[in-house]
């Protein structure tokens, strides 16, 4: 397929879509599926099958407000789309009757999400532009919205150097968490000597509560593939790998389908769009190790080795897969490529702050009213995210902190709610941007207990290669266990702090280095909660079960004490 053919395909698809009086979009992402989207789909499908000349029924990706799924959008020709929440099969039939088929269409008012709601208006959907609007399993739908035109443009009008410099100018930084300038990385790989190079998309998203990459791969897989193909062209690679964790079967299925469809149309594979550029993409499925999100461990896993990090340097840009220069980016980073190529670096760099450009997807979860997947411009304040988009706390509860960056990040308390969300500001608060998990906690959450939760995660996910991470995380977890069950002493707290520094400074890879962050940041802002557990044997949030006493106190209360296990 060449460029005119691509254009023709887009026009043909738009023409086809215009014929319908109504487009009904039903979210089929994992979040909505888990709240019953499948039965909704099964109920509606036979009904709408009969109306297929009139109504187009589209299974789409994520619409964002995952906490109120299943979501369904009804768009009558020439009208604003209407989004319904908590759509049960019964409600769907009612919507069908009163909104879709009725002569005077009347939306079911109390189930409609208002379009001017801050949840929607405060967002800037660049990467998620197609998410919830296109059928992720139909290439034509993606193409009709400008899909693969960025690749076509890059291949025809731009040199690899141009592409890299466009990215440098855009100010895009890696969305995996560390925020390395993407353009610089691409340029390094482009300049690296080597006949064979690789492009890798990191979709091994493992943070508890984070599902940005999953959603992107499920909702708009072609965008990721197109971004990777442009990367392949820019750095001179002919082979790409998407590394997806095995827990994402739907993402894997849709990526597989998308790769096949793109290859069939000559958008991937040999002689991409009839140019001299060849690019194949294969999927590698992870086996459930968080550490494989670390780039060197990920590459080891792709090569069929034990998923353990190795020491950098050499960086993957010099020596990665099978010793060849390798470009590794997060899935979301690849999602940013097509808008930058299509609309230009100047447009892109208007969004965001001086040092952090563009938008960031967050998985907003925890004790907020509206939990879901959001995309916001960099520089938005945390207060806007939590209270405007998130709708604030459940009545009667107050905000305590938000955890960004998952088990590698830290918490942000009330006094810093007005901090702009960008790489540097979050780092200055002892947290980090991370890949985009954002867990909101209210006054019923005990901070030492949260630290324990994250530490347990790090302990379970430590690969075991280096001593500080392997044993240090376990000992930190034990100390937190003692603190939360009431048996810790002041000495234990001191030991915990010392261990945090050891593990941070001496671990081999990022997993270990950052694992003490949840403790360090909760100690920084909520030290009194730790001290209350230790000095008064009391959990201020009322969450912990104080069942033990420090061993020395057993001498006095010896008859109460020893639970025989």
């Amino acid at each position, binding site marked *: 397929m060449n460029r005119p053919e691509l254009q023709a395909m887009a026009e043909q698809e738009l023409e086809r879509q215009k014929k319908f009086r109504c487009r009904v979009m039903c979210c089929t992402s994992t979040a909505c599926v888990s709240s019953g989207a499948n039965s909704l789909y099964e109920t509606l499908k036979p009904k709408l099958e009969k109306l297929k000349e009139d109504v187009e029924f589209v299974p789409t990706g994520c619409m964002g407000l995952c906490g109120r799924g299943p979501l369904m959008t009804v768009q009558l020709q020439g009208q604003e789309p209407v989004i319904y929440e908590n759509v049960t099969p019964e409600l769907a039939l009612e919507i069908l009757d009163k909104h879709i088929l009725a002569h005077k269409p009347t939306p079911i008012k109390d189930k409609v999400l208002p379009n001017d709601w801050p949840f929607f208006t405060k967002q800037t959907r660049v990467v998620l532009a197609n998410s919830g609007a296109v059928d992720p399993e139909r290439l034509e739908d993606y193409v009709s919205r400008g899909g693969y035109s960025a690749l076509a443009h890059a291949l025809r009008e731009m040199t690899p150097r141009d592409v890299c410099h466009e990215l440098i100018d855009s100010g895009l930084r890696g969305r995996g968490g560390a925020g390395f300038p993407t353009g610089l990385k691409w340029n390094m790989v482009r300049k690296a000597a080597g006949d064979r190079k690789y492009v890798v998309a990191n979709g091994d998203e493992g943070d508890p509560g984070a599902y940005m990459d999953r959603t992107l791969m499920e909702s708009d897989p072609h965008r990721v593939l197109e971004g990777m193909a442009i990367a392949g062209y820019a750095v001179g690679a002919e082979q790409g790998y998407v590394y997806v964790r095995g827990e994402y079967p739907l993402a894997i299925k849709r990526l597989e389908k998308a790769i096949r469809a793109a290859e069939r149309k000559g958008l991937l594979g040999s002689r991409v769009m009839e140019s001299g550029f060849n690019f194949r993409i294969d999927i590698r499925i992870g086996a459930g190790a968080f550490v494989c999100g670390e780039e060197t461990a990920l590459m080891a896993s792709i090569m069929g080795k034990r998923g353990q990090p190795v020491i950098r340097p050499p960086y993957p840009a010099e020596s990665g897969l099978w010793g060849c220069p390798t470009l590794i980016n997060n899935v979301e980073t690849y999602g940013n490529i097509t808008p930058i190529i299509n609309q230009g670096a100047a447009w892109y760099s208007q969004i965001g702050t001086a040092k952090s450009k563009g938008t960031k997807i967050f998985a907003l979860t925890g004790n907020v009213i509206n939990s879901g997947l959001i995309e916001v411009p960099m520089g938005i304040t945390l207060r806007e995210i939590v209270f405007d988009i998130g709708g604030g706390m459940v009545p009667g509860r107050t905000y305590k902190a938000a955890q960004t960056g998952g088990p590698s990040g830290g918490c942000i308390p009330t006094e810093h709610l007005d901090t702009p969300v960008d790489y540097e500001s979050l780092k200055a608060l002892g947290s980090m941007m991370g890949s985009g998990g954002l867990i909101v906690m209210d006054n019923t959450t005990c901070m030492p207990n949260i630290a324990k939760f994250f530490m347990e995660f790090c302990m379970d996910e430590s690969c075991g290669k280096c001593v500080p991470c392997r044993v240090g995380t376990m000992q930190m977890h034990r100390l937190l266990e003692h603190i939360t069950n009431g048996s810790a002493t002041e000495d234990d707290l001191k030991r915990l702090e010392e261990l945090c520094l050891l593990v941070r400074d001496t671990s081999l890879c990022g997993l270990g280095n950052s694992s003490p962050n949840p403790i360090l940041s909760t100690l920084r802002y909520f030290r009194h909660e730790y001290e209350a557990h230790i000095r008064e044997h009391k959990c201020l949030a009322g969450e912990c079960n104080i069942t033990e006493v420090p*061993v*020395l106190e057993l001498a006095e209360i*010896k008859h109460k*004490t020893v639970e025989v*296990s």
Partner: protein
Amino acid sequence: MTDKIRLATAWLGGCSGCHMSFLDLNEHLLDLAKAAELVYSPIADLKEFPEGVDVALVEGAVANIDHVELSKKIRARSKLVVSFGDCAVTGNVTILRNRFGVDDLLTAVYHAGPGAAPRGHDPDGIIPYLLPRVLPLHQVIAVDAYVPGCPPSADRIWAAVSALLRGEKVPVEEEAITFG
């Protein structure tokens, strides 16, 4: 009489091997007797740990409630507490029971075979409760010096004790602190 150093030795969860090694001081015992008065020890048959102890050598790991009580008393009533031997310092062999639950352990040892010994967790006031986990001494009370070894050799003990008698610190050189 009063210018003598008040020395105590105590025996928690251990095999008493450290005390045996202590007796191997042989002629140094005479030097020790000149400088110190033994105010409490399993080899001196005193019931109550006295007040105003200068140096207490504690053998064995903390394995039951009685050990906790005694350690607490030792700490409160002694100027210097020395963790004496590997069981006190590391838990050593005593700590190996931590991999079993207390009940399983008592059942296996006293009830699975013939006999029906008290289980050690009834409030009978005779058998002290076993702690769920055996702990080295310094994880229960603050400890001022460590003399590892299983047992510490008589030379090592003398080096430590004579240093303490001179008011100096217990040696911490490589050869003085190997475990085992």
